[in-house]
């Protein structure tokens, strides 16, 4: 029995790593979904064909990414690398489980060479694109990517970890192929002739003098390093801005379908307004027990979609770079608004994990994470929402928080309070008499 166990030890080891990696990811996803569900309910399961089309265009087709050509093209390369190299990961996983080597090769024949060859070219493309991104980030030419302001500390480290990991994974992949290629030419047992190595062929001379055992070790080391790296990276995602590679799909699927200018009706307010307008109306029993709240003070007052928006944000800062308030030196940054929502959601989620699902601390999104000064700088121009490559809607969060400031705390700037009272009393935001409303007709 002993030799048999030994023979299958790598398979068993791989199976354990694979189950641990994907299991831990599933467990993390439960946490993420629970956090998103802290948001208010909202039914978005309508107009499915339209939603699928938006997802296909914006997430799969990257239509908004390429509006900025350099970043767009680089991103498409990395993205294609991610999607297409996953075919290779499937083979790697099956090889790991079955103890086979290049399982697909005999079935695919020439096509296999084409596939491996294109994976190599993509992998090299990914390395180049990641290097360009690192240079853009640390070369200081791109304001929104500088490691200051919104991106100070963790967000910038996060970005470097992601780019470095991708470079390492692709390097492992290419090195593995290089070693494999040398082993193949030497006709070593188990290393069948398969694949084309347009990129790693260039690395093969480096290993020409290596012994067979050394090459096998290198090939196995890179193989394990690559797949374990992928499993680790998968579990890094939920802690990172890189989560967008998954959440871009549901987030664009659940895009706002109404015109960008349309704000949602606050139903709690409508109940109150109807009661005010109709003296006969009875407060319904459900709402008479608890005071309804207006607008959003905390993440639990936002909808689940707004929370999904926050998790989908990859902190690219295109929103902030188009924001008129931010461009003119105001405190508001739409990116920071979404980052604050995520930070607060994570914090409250952790607390609720510990203390139960209804726990609240004495912190709030409004005030502790986002200040009124940020909120009052917004012109609701929707430049941020338009710029977002994954259709995040920061304006809705800003307006919901303003609603709380105004209707719960009566904390509007004095000038806006004056405007409110003019609208209420004169039917216009300025102090004119409603009786003079049509006087323009007679003026020359």
């Amino acid at each position: 029995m002993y030799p048999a166990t030994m023979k299958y030890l790598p398979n068993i080891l791989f199976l354990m790593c694979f189950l641990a990696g994907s299991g831990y990811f599933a467990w993390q996803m439960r946490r993420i979904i629970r956090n998103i569900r802290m948001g208010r309910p909202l039914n978005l399961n309508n107009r499915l064909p339209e939603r699928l089309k938006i997802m296909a265009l914006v997430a799969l087709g990257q239509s908004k990414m390429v509006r900025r050509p350099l970043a767009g093209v680089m991103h498409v390369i990395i993205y294609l690398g991610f999607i297409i190299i996953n075919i290779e990961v499937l083979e790697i996983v099956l090889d790991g489980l079955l103890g086979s080597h290049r399982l697909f090769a005999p079935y695919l024949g020439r096509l296999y060479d084409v596939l491996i060859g294109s994976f190599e070219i993509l992998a090299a493309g990914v390395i180049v694109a990641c290097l360009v991104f690192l240079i853009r980030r640390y070369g200081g030419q791109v304001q929104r990517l500088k490691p200051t302001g919104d991106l100070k500390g963790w967000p910038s480290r996060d970005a470097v970890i992601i780019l470095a990991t991708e470079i390492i994974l692709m390097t492992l992949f290419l090195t593995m192929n290089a070693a494999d290629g040398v082993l193949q030419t030497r006709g070593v047992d188990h290393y069948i002739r398969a694949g084309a190595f347009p990129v790693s062929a260039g690395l093969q001379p480096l290993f020409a003098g290596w012994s067979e055992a050394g090459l096998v070790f290198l090939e196995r080391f890179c193989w394990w390093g690559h797949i374990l790296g992928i499993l680790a990276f998968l579990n890094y995602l939920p802690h990172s801005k890189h989560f967008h590679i998954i959440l871009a799909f549901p987030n664009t699927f659940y895009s706002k379908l109404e015109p960008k200018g349309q704000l949602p009706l606050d139903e709690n307010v409508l109940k109150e307004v109807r009661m005010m307008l109709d003296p006969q109306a009875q407060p319904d029993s459900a709402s008479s027990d608890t005071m309804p709240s207006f607008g959003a003070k905390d993440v639990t007052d936002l909808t689940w979609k707004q929370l999904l928006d926050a998790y989908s944000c990859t902190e690219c800062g295109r929103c902030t770079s188009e924001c008129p308030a931010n461009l003119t030196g105001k405190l508001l940054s739409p990116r920071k608004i979404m980052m604050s929502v995520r930070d607060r959601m994570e914090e409250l989620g952790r607390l609720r994990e510990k203390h139960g699902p209804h726990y609240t601390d004495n912190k709030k999104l409004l005030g502790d994470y986002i200040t009124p000064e940020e909120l009052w700088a917004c012109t609701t121009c929707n430049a941020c929402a338009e710029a977002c490559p994954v259709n995040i809607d920061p304006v809705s969060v800003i307006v919901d928080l303003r609603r709380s400031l105004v209707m719960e705390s009566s904390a509007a700037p004095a000038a806006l309070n004056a405007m409110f009272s003019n609208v209420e009393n004169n039917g216009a935001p300025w102090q004119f008499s409603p009786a003079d409303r049509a006087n323009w007709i007679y003026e020359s």
Partner: protein
Amino acid sequence: MQIKTVAELAAEGKSPEVLFWVGCAGSFDDKAKKVSKALASLLTQAGIEWAILGQEESCSGDPARRAGNEFLFQMMALQNIQVLNGYNIRTIVTACPHCFNTLKNEYPALGGHYEVFHHSQFLQKLLDEGRIRIREEVFKGKKVTFHDPCYLGRANGEYLAPRAVIRKVFQNIEEMERHGQRALCCGAGGAQMFKEAEKGLKEVNIERTEEALRVHPDILAVGCPFCKTMLSDGVKHFEKEEHIRVADLAEILAEAAAPIPESESKN
């Protein structure tokens, strides 16, 4: 020009083909009143049977809503909807993109369903139907640029209608660097019009005016009363008001419009 109110028409047992929703700026702001006049004359020239609500019109509620006062918005909206539905209004045209957005997109949820046009859209329709004629020589040799209003452009995806109107009068439009989907706000939206800007390095309207000045236009065309105010202030800030005119689409068109001979006119 005789302008009737819907109430006056109702007294005659009539209902207008189109309601001109003037808006608060169009009613009270000096620069915007000129736009109201221009649009009024164009509607009349085109032979549209139109009317205004006059004293029965109230703020649409847009600035209250964007400023977070959902109560006040809903009160205003319900009140306006009651008036509009009472007169059985079906078609509305307005020169204010904020009113346009609110009436078109936000009133339906409260029971107000109308076909709402921004004046650029309605004027484009009238031009296409040949109901407004243009004397092409009026603005000949003048350079024009167009500032997209956020609530017409990004908020409602309408970038073509205002440009179609301008192209009837000018050979071409000299676009600013940021235009269309990427157009920079004038700084007035989201109720900023009614408050001081938050602390910053610059005013938004100055940033936008600088951009407009870079294309050296004779005319800076706008489609929103707030944009008109903000950019006029910007042009004044740079002491360019002698050289650059900030004008609404309706004003430009009204000046370029040729009177249609009585014999051909519908009325």
